[in-house]
């Protein structure tokens, strides 16, 4: 770890102002991702702004029947919230399918959204990685790529967005709210939060430099049956090979987002009209343009099978 200075702030406005004042600064929320990356010198902030006490730790109903989740609400609290469990079951299920109890106690909503990839070569600072060192190359494409992206990736990077919570939020049509150092707030639909890598895999989101996430807003409950199915290498405490977040309605329609296969939670709204015809046609459309490696090829098939499983489960 490199030396850094540390500062605690007490309001969102103060946080946004503080980060603008220090080039090289980063927000520290639960620290479960950032500190790991700092220990390996993959992230090397010179200054940390601890936002743990700026409030934003509430889950509140919104005027139009939805819910606003503060950026600092922990994963544990969010998963256990009665309102979330009742009306947004998919989110609660996705959360408890992620990480471990200890990590979820520390992990925050905003930190979880912004967690970085688990590509093994991103973690090995001795290897070329366009995401870590732009222009250095990508060690993963011809390497160990079994758990990496099969769609949405590029010749520069095949890393996945590894998280679970955002997959559910994508199916729920969530919106991310932010504030910038000038005090300006804005709303970003979650489908537009993550960028595809293209030639610039180091740019992962559409957030501006120094923009603070203040909350995530969920629209009024969609109803339906909520299923989150995560396929992974052990029964718990492992990142997804494939995860499916589904909201299914009685008439056979629904919304589906898939995790573990792309640089962002993968949802193709245009494909969802095919859901009533079954997993095969829907998956074919969803996975159009897939470009797996030999090692990750199985995932394309696994997506279809997991969706088939989820549709079956939705019917029973």
């Amino acid at each position, binding site marked *: *770890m*490199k*030396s850094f200075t540390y500062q605690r702030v007490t309001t969102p406005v103060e946080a946004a102002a503080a980060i603008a004042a220090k080039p090289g600064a980063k927000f520290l929320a639960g620290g479960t991702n950032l500190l790991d990356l700092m220990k390996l*010198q993959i992230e090397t902030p010179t200054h940390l702004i601890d936002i743990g006490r700026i409030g934003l730790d509430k889950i509140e109903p919104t005027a139009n029947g939805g819910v606003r989740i503060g950026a600092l609400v922990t994963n544990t609290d969010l998963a256990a919230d009665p309102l979330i469990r009742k009306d947004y079951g998919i989110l609660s299920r996705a959360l408890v399918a992620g990480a471990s109890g200890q990590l979820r106690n520390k992990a925050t909503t905003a930190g979880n959204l912004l967690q970085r990839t*688990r590509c*093994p*070569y991103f*973690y*090995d600072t*001795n*290897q070329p990685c366009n995401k870590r060192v732009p222009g250095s190359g990508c*060690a993963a494409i*011809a*390497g*160990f790529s*079994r758990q990496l992206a099969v769609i949405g990736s590029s010749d520069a990077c095949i890393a996945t967005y590894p998280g679970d919570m955002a997959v559910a939020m994508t199916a729920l049509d969530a919106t991310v709210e932010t504030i910038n150092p000038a005090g300006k707030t804005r709303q970003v639909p979650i489908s537009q939060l993550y960028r595809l890598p293209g030639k610039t895999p180091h740019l992962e989101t559409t957030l501006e430099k120094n923009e603070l996430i203040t909350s995530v807003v969920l629209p009024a409950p969609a109803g339906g049956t909520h299923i989150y*199915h995560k*396929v*992974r*290498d*052990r*029964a*718990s*405490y*492992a*990142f997804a*090979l*494939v995860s499916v977040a589904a909201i299914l309605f009685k008439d056979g329609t629904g919304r589906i987002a898939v995790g573990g296969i792309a640089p962002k939670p993968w949802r193709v709204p245009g494909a969802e009209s095919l859901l009533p015809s079954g997993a095969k046609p829907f998956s074919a459309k969803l996975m159009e343009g897939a470009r797996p490696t030999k090692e990750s090829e*199985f995932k394309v*098939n*696994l997506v279809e*099978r*997991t969706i*088939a*499983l989820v549709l*079956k*489960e939705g019917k029973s």
Partner: protein
Amino acid sequence: MKNEKNPPLDRIDGRMKVTGGAKYFADFAIPNMTYCVIVGSEIARGTVTNIDIKKAQGAPGVLGVFTHQNMPPIPGWDAPPSKQADGPPPKPDTEEKYRILSSPKILFDGQPIAMVVADTYERATYAASLVKATYSKQAARTDLDKHKKDEITPKGGDYARGNAKAFESAPVQLESEYTIPIEVHNPMELHGIVVHWTGADQLMIYAKTQGVNSTQQAMAQAFKLDPKNIHVHTEFMGGGFGMGLRTWPQETATVAIAKKVGRPVKLVMHRSQMFTTVGHRPYTAQSIQMGADKNGKLISIHHAATAETAKYEDFTEATVNMTKFMYDCPNVSTRYRLVRLDRSVPIWMRGPGEATGAFALESAMDEMAHKLNMDPIEFRIKNYTETDPEHNRPYSSKHLKEAYERGAEAIGWKERKNEPGVSKEDNWLAGYGMSTGVFNAFRWEASARVVLNADGSLVVQSAVTDIGPGTGTALTMIAHNVLDIPFDRIKVEYGDTSLPKAPSQGGSAIVSAVGSAVFDTCTKIKNELFELTTKAGAPLAGSKAADLSMENGNIFLSNSPSKKVAVTELLKTNNLPSIAQTADSKGSAEQEKYSMYSFSVHFVKVKVNALTGAVRVTKAVSVADSGRIISPKTAASQMIGGVTGGIGMALTEEAIIDHRFGRFVNNNLADYHVAVHADVPAIETIFIDKPDPIINPMGAKGMGEIALIGFSAAVANAVFNATGKRIRQLPITPDKVMQQVS
């Protein structure tokens, strides 16, 4: 010794462990401590052409940066390894020599190229990141499958009995290939050492070792010191699983560095370094040819294994040995080869080679049973042997048939359909599997000291380290069984070279070895007490020792219990503050006439998701035929731990190398998947609990290894029973299953 079942005694150190009272090596704080961090090579083969340590030397708090250019000498490196220094000795015929920080040559990924010492761990870690090396790189050979043709034949050679061509005419034939990946022990506790030179030639060491005597010996040799001047302490260990069975070069280097720095040094390695510098279970490719007649009688087995080892050291293990004696089969041959790769040297990992071999043999037995349309247990019983066909001698004890029966009953084997792929539960396929495990039961030399105090309390002493199985608890039970002193008056002291010598904790041999020494020592004390009781003028003068018994701190006439004397009274009247005895204990020549093995049978029930390929073990039953069970509670914990390790081996554990670079890609606990709670169902443990009449006075055989050996095959066999598909490459991950099951 009482000859009935032992009561369930709580782990004597349990409370200490859960309240933080147990001190592990890194917990020892010494004033003026410094901290050492290793910089590992970033290449797997080549030469360090330049190493820049200036920045690191100038970093805050740094006290020394050691590389091959300035490493203080280790005078005894090339002394021949002594008997006590456990671990495979460097073979003179290997192509290379590995001597830490002595040459710019890189023999494996992660090889230490610098060791940095600073006044805090954080500063040492940061300074380590400033060490910059440039290399002249060579292509690394790390892929065993690619280099099989370079195999060598290690000592011991091949084995054969009967007719080598019997297979060719066998009516039913099976030929299968199996692989197991590199597995890493990954105990929770990180490896390392705390070194304190308390005088010019006086050393205090807190180690993470499975044998304090072994570490003492290794350091004495390396630094040409009298072992008496080296004090090694390891009372507790946060898991060893075999990786602590030798003194690793970086530990020796830390001793040299501590001398140079002139302050105590603590080395605690990084998790990623646990993959490269403290051994692993080697990648092993195996093949089995099995022939049988139509009635299920085995005609022949050929078992071949090829394992990786390092360029600089040949590591061998007993991978194919089980095949030689497990079943009644006239024609058996085995073949064992090594390939020297640009890799660090492996070491034993729980259930060492046998666990690897059992995966192949016991999978093959299941495959053959299926070909014969026989129940897998019936097939094993059909080929059961009451005598050891390898050595042509009886087993000291074998109750395997009973183990099959009791395990089958407990798992509900009769629910199993012999036809695979037909049982469904909910949306899952369901299946049952079983397998056999076996491991040598040893009787090694050990010594113990026992002190009976005037207040009636007892102290039992041995240098043995408790790596977790509950050694202290077992020794308490053994002492209690001889002297019948209440459990809470018995104290066991262990894990320190100031105590009587003991072998390293390994090979499931400690209850047998150290337990026998404690038994013998306590018996000596008992005899002395009986003498005091019966001598002229004593309370029971004139009685014969043979007529006496002990219970609850009293000695009495067995047929007239009211005639008794308290042990405390006896010592008092004889003016004895205590009675102390020491005894060395070893096996007898009689034992040469027997084959001594512990046996296990594992049963599992699995469910397999036919769509996603996910496998869940939903029930596990493990039966141990390991003689008399000394400490039922800790023995059950041992079995549960073994099964948990077995589930990891079967389903999740694999250290993956990117062979382009010869480096691991999952060298952390997030990506190297040990089994977690959700992977582990309720485990039922069953003990046959019949004393072995030959091995030692307690009748106890070992059980640490058999808890794991064979388990992975039981899972693979159950997956086959559930799906009709055979996975021969561990671990059985969802992608492998999914691609086979449609």
